[in-house]
């Protein structure tokens, strides 16, 4: 039964990719894209209910593994992928109307969008640490041509940088995986089971600590490049700024989470083997550095998408820090922050996308008075910015509050860094977005009406998570946190 549910989840985007590879140039390709994304989302809901009811499960000869932790990311990924497909329908049509995209480019976009969803879902659900690597690389490959979709010099440069840096990063992760296999082979024997996470997790105490230590360094650096941890982040702002906005939204909201999931899985094994907090400390260090560097970089940004890309680095740093700290409260807060960051950041990118289309530029100095041109875009941007800056009553406030209070309790010396970084980020983003939203306008009308329902649905969910967390949801997060230890 679980086999069937998982198959539905993975087949929907795969079939979507194949269908759109054939019919991507048709008029209804955008609708087909949304429809397939909806099927994926529906399958993820069914799978989630199943896992919440009956706990962790393995499927397909243990090649796939689903527990409360990754099913929450599966549901989030499928949901945001669905809403982004709704947003991209009018957005991409406007881009085509402006002459920035041809039908051929849209064809590529739709087909790759589905394949990207497929790669992420495989990376999340597979039990095999080797397949995690293969799927992460596939996720890079499917998005690299999307980043250069506009074929401008800047977008080509961004895509090349993304390809080379993530290629190198992920190659190091493969070396880490090989080392992990080297250690596992001595305990579990050769062949298929030595890379299966569930098996590794059972024998993690017997794995050779020296090898695992080295393996984790490679895995963290490798997958950390994809998470966008400082100092491996330099591809991220370029790729987010130069790619089409729906791609920025899914890269920022989803791909970074998926890469972090791979890091967390490795961390559980390594700390279990060493019996110390080695992996956790490394993650805390990288996380803290990312938060501080990213928030100070925010001041220098002139491009609106670039600025929010740096904000993603900051938030991913915060999540990495929280998950590195470990313990039930910090892990709970880290997962909550993953959820609210994905929802809020993709909502912001949706609003930013339309704001950029209206004013014809990504330079913030030239985007003015969004509230006058279109109250929905303006309010979407304003409320999204408030939410991402951690203002109460939004969910980001709740998770940041939990992370900081836990840090105060466990590692008091980190709190000044975190508080200063969050303060700086607030000043930088608020100062730059305020005139964009208010102020005098120069923008023009759009040929198609924008899709802003996804923006407000996301923000409403974030608001709800801040005000009231349903008990079953809290339970679910707590169970997931318990699994990660």
């Amino acid at each position, binding site marked *: 039964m679980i086999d069937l549910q998982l198959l539905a989840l993975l087949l929907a985007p795969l079939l979507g990719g194949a269908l759109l590879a054939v019919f991507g140039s048709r008029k209804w390709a955008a609708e087909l894209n949304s429809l397939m994304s909806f099927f994926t989302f529906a399958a993820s809901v069914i799978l989630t209910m199943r896992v919440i009811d009956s706990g962790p499960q393995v499927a397909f000869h243990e090649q796939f593994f689903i527990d409360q932790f990754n099913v929450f990311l599966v549901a989030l990924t499928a949901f945001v992928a669905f809403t982004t497909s709704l947003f991209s329908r009018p957005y991409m049509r406007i881009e085509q109307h402006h002459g920035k995209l041809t039908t051929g480019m849209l064809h590529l976009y739709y087909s790759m969008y589905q394949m990207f969803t497929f790669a992420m879902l495989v990376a999340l659900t597979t039990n095999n640490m080797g*397949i995690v690597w293969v799927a992460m690389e596939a996720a890079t490959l499917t998005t690299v041509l999307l980043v*250069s979709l506009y074929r401008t*010099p800047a977008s080509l*440069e961004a895509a090349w940088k993304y390809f080379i840096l993530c290629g190198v990063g992920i190659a190091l992760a493969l070396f880490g995986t090989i080392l992990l296999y080297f250690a596992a082979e001595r305990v579990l024997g050769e062949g298929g089971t030595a*890379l299966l996470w569930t098996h590794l997790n059972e024998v993690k105490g017997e794995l050779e600590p020296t090898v695992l230590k080295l393996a984790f360094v490679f895995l963290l650096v490798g997958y950390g490049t994809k998470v966008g941890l400082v100092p491996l982040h330099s591809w991220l*702002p370029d790729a987010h700024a130069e790619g089409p906005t729906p791609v920025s939204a899914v890269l920022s909201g989803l791909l970074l989470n998926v890469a972090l999931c791979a890091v967390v899985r490795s961390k559980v094994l390594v700390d279990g083997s060493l019996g110390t907090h080695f992996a956790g400390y490394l993650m805390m260090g990288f996380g803290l550095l990312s938060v501080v560097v990213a928030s100070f970089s925010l001041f220098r940004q002139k491009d609106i998408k*670039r600025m929010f890309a740096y904000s993603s680095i900051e938030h991913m740093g915060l999540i990495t820090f929280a998950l590195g700290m470990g313990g039930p409260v910090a892990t709970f807060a880290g997962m909550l922050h993953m959820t609210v960051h994905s929802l809020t950041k993709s909502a912001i990118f949706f609003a930013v996308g339309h704001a950029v289309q209206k004013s014809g530029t990504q330079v913030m100095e030239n985007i003015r008075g969004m509230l006058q041109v279109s109250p929905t875009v303006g309010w979407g941007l304003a409320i999204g910015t408030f939410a991402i800056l951690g203002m109460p009553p939004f969910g980001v406030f709740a998770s940041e509050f939990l992370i900081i209070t836990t840090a105060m309790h466990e590692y008091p010396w980190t709190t000044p860094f975190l508080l200063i970084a969050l303060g700086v980020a607030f000043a930088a983003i608020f100062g730059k977005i305020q005139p964009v939203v208010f102020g005098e306008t120069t923008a023009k009308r759009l040929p198609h009406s924008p899709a802003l329902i996804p923006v407000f649905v996301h923000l409403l969910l974030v608001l709800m998570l801040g005000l009231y967390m349903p008990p079953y949801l809290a339970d679910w997060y707590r169970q997931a946190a318990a699994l990660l230890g």
Partner: protein
Amino acid sequence: MQTPFLLQFINLLAALLLLIAFAMLTQRRILSLINLFALQGAVLSLSTFVVAFSTSQHHLYYSAGLTLLLKVLLLPWLLHRLIRKLNVRWDVETLINIPTTMLVGISLVIFSFNLAAPIAQLSEGLTRGLIGIALASVLLSLLMMLTRRKAVSQVVAFLSLENGLFFAATSATQGMPLVVELGIALDVLVATFIFGIFFFQIRETFDSLDIAHMEKLKDD
């Protein structure tokens, strides 16, 4: 089970692999670079075959065949075709400071041997010391990516990096599960195609395959 002869043979091949990595680091002609890459693939395939023979791991024979097909025949053929179409077949790259690059390379080798020393202690017989060589060739390819300014040679460096990893997987750990190896091979193949598409897009936009033109994106 394994004769000292086979052991020595594998060590010889590993040393050859490292030597080729150094040769690639300093090779200035794109055509020769691709030929060196093919040679590296051939050594890799042969070493995988020898490991398969001496440990009688059957799936390693498939890996050796896959390497031969992909890295000795298909990818070099694709690259040759690409440079012919792009008309960069006879391009010579100016490399600054070859002696310094070599010295950095040597220290990378020492560093990786040091790093791998505790691991080499753990492994028995055949694979001892090989993981250090694998790590060294991975780091040398990384260095090559940093020092190159032409898109094609960066891609060759990327593929040779993958060769180093494959050597680690087959020789040091006697092969990852076949499904993983197939997945990795597929990714590498697709990556090469995408690189090919990129070459044409870059050339169309910048009139050159020099990535010095692509350093415009900055934070300001």
